């Protein structure tokens, strides 16, 4: 059985609790245990590096220090913003003894920056795509997804060393194991506005609108994300976007974990899919087949 340290980050304990529900529900049948990091603190997100460089280093560093204290070597952070901030600090600490010492003093715990950070997709990669394929109970042949990575899952590429920042393929690979298909489209790594959700709605709506439009134009019947902020912008804001642009996107936005859960035979309510703002049944294979006749 695999076990990872778990850093939920604020969003998963707040307005993206459906994501946490989904992650936990789908990992259980795959035999993955999560051990939540004790007394973790917020990573500071965009706000910290917008306002104070040292804080942007220290807040993630405190969490890395907690992980090191508790002997956690692999830490799963489902929010790409959190995982990117954690990795960035890891890299900054690595090979800079001066900074390590200074930061250790600030966060009151020794920190070396050696913990390996995993995002959602990497957790699935660790489980093994073949194992997932073997565990699938209900292949998702009716799903034609546009995999949306957003900006932070793959960037900055040389720091994260995760997937091609221009043409990532890791989500597609997982989806194919589920029997779903993925469309080729153009906005897989275009930004949705991420952290500006509240502060600058017009920007966020415009960017998200373009993403939804492009996905539909390329024949996707849903979007798949692995980021709470992307989900917020594309799902929660969808009604707002519809109103603003006089359209009706009506696009399901799944977490990658939702689809895995569904393929493993879990109920949508177990995964928290019912808590999304846009909820509608995707055409099942049966109805699609019926239409073709």
């Amino acid at each position, binding site marked *: 059985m695999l076990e990872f340290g778990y850093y939920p980050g604020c969003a998963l304990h707040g307005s993206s609790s459906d994501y946490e529900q989904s992650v936990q529900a789908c990992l259980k049948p795959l035999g993955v245990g999560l051990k939540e990091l004790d007394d973790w603190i917020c990573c500071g997100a965009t706000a910290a590096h917008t306002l104070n460089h040292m804080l942007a280093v220290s807040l993630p560093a405190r969490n890395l220090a907690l992980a090191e204290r508790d002997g956690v070597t692999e830490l799963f952070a489902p929010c790409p913003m959190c995982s990117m901030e954690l990795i960035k600090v890891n890299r900054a600490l690595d090979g800079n003894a001066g900074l390590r010492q200074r930061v250790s003093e600030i966060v009151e715990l020794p920190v070396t920056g050696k913990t390996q950070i995993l995002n959602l997709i990497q957790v699935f990669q660790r489980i093994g795509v073949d194992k997932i394929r073997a565990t699938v109970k209900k292949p998702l042949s009716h799903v034609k997804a546009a995999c949306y990575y957003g900006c932070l899952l793959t960037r900055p590429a040389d720091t994260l060393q995760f997937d091609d920042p*221009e043409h990532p393929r890791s989500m597609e690979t997982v989806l194919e194991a589920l029997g779903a298909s993925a469309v*080729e489209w*153009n906005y897989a790594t275009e930004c949705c506005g991420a952290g500006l959700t509240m502060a600058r709605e017009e920007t966020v709506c415009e960017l998200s609108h373009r993403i939804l439009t*492009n996905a539909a134009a390329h024949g996707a019947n849903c979007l798949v994300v692995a980021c709470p902020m992307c989900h917020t912008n594309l799902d929660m804001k969808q009604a707002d976007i519809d109103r603003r642009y006089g359209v009706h996107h009506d696009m399901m936005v799944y977490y990658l974990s939702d689809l895995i859960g569904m393929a493993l035979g879990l109920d949508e309510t177990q995964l928290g899919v019912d808590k999304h703002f846009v909820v509608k049944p995707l055409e099942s294979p049966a109805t699609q087949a019926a239409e073709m006749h």
Partner: protein
Amino acid sequence: MGRIGVFICWCGENIARAFDMDELTEAVAEIPGVRCAIHYKYMCSEPGQALIREKIRSEKLEAVVVASCSPHMHLKTFRAAAAAAGLNPYLVEMANIREQCSWVHEPYEDETVAKAVSIIRMTVHKVLRNRALEPIRVPLTKRALVVGGGVAGIQASLDLADSGYEVVLVEREPSIGGKMAGLSETFPTLDCSQCILTPRMVEVGQHPNIRLYTYSEVESVEGFVGNFNITIRQKARYVDIEKCTGCLECWNRCPSREAPSEFDYGLTKRKAIYVPFPQAVPARPIIDLNSCAKFLRNECGTCLKVCQANAINFDDQDMLVTEQVGAIVVATGYRMYDIGREQENAKYAGYGEYGYGQYRDVIDSLQFERLLSASGPTGGEVKRPSDGAVPKKVVFIACVGSRDNAKGIPYCSKICCMYTAKHTMLYKHKVHDGQAHVFYMDIRAGGKGYEEFVRRAIEKDGARYHRGRVSKITEENGKLIVRGADTLAGAPVTIEADLVVLAAAMRPATGVLELAQKIKLGYDEFGFLSESHPKLRPVETNTAGVYICGACHAPKDIPEAVAQASAAAGKVQVLFSKGELTREPEVASVNEQTCAACFACVRTCPYLAIDKAEIRDRQGNLRKMTARVNPSLCMGCGTCVAVCPSKSVDLEGFSEEQIYEMVNGLI
């Protein structure tokens, strides 16, 4: 030795003004080993030289020091004079008391005189330890190898062959011609590339002095300047080009048409037995086993049946042949930077953001040349690959790969600004209602008529130039959405294009590094071959007898490649103009008994003149390893002497002993 003659020159007043010449001469006569010391008004004049000759004979001098001007001025003169009197010329040295003494110090000062004496004493100390030397003679094979049959290799071969030397031309592809054979029209004059190149190709094919090996590679190179021994691998072609008459019946009848055409850069398919292009030299087919039905499935054999000349041979094997040459010209040219995501080396990260290889209507500039070419897949009509539609809006992107540190190529590819301007023009000439857009960073058009050419593309043919790089290309509804910037306007620019042409960087040809290692050529971090001196020896290399030309040296256009090729041919002719090669004998040599085989010298020698050698006893058992200098390659810099930890290398003319004794003499 102890019979040294010292000849002190007045140089009119130039030297004599500074000294009392008699006193100086007397002081010099005191130096141990000096047999006679004489002063004279003009040593380099005929009477002066006669004086030296006479004294060499009468005093039976064993060595000579001329104390006068700089050795750069007259060392050759005096060595020749000594030789005329029967003295080995390497037993003559000069003491520079003019440039470095009388001209720069106050006259008649004691210090000045003392200095002149010590300069002469130092030189005497040295010449006492000079040895009689003979110039190194190297036999010379007056044939040349040219590697690469692009326009540069063709030019070099023809120049050499026309001046009467035999040329061995080795081309890796089934035909010569290189990239130029596939170009449409060429800047800056817009003449048709094939029209000017194919006659030259035919000439190569028919020239009595040129032995052409196509579909062949250099397997190994041994020897050195004047005496290279080349092994050439002739790859199996499965068609005997001696028997083949070139009727092309096989080509017409071959049923397989699967492989992407190399000549059209994948824009069309070709058959399994094919001639690369109609004007190929030799105009003989070749079979690509990877797409031949007989070879793959034993299902065909049509060509075997139809060939009247019995030229098809499925049992053909690679063959090794050897050739002796005296000089080598490398002209292996370039290849395009691979814009796609897959790279042979992670350093050259591809351009995922441009969708090359993903969107069919994003092509590179060599592919666009084919679309423009009258002999190309569309017969010269501009039609885009995806659906054959005539593109009404074409975006050209400059500096793709070039000047991009993040992708591993910081240099400018130099010609893409020009061919991009050419592309916009030719496109406009063919699609009158079309609009060309160019994204560029700087326009680099230095050359005769080049700037005017670019201005014509903009002013007359209406190409719209945007100064900025493109960030991303996406495809929507059959249009390519190009997102760039116009930094002069200070705004992002989005263009919906029908076709996008990427002016990819030029990189050296594949396999050039292996070749360079075989020939012992230097190359830069990008794999371009290094010249000996960027200004004064631009086509020579640090390996004597090896020359470079064309785009294997750096990105360059046809005029430059051709000029360099003629220069390289000229250098070979200079080399061949002598009966045999003679070299200055002031070279290094290794004391093989004391050499510790650390090979520090091997690594430092800039001319790769030192080899690792084995010393074996009579039974052939390895006794020890040693370094060994090849006197034909050593240039006499002495770097090896300084690095040898066991003091086992020494340099003739500047030996350890000589230099120590000179220091001794100075102080």
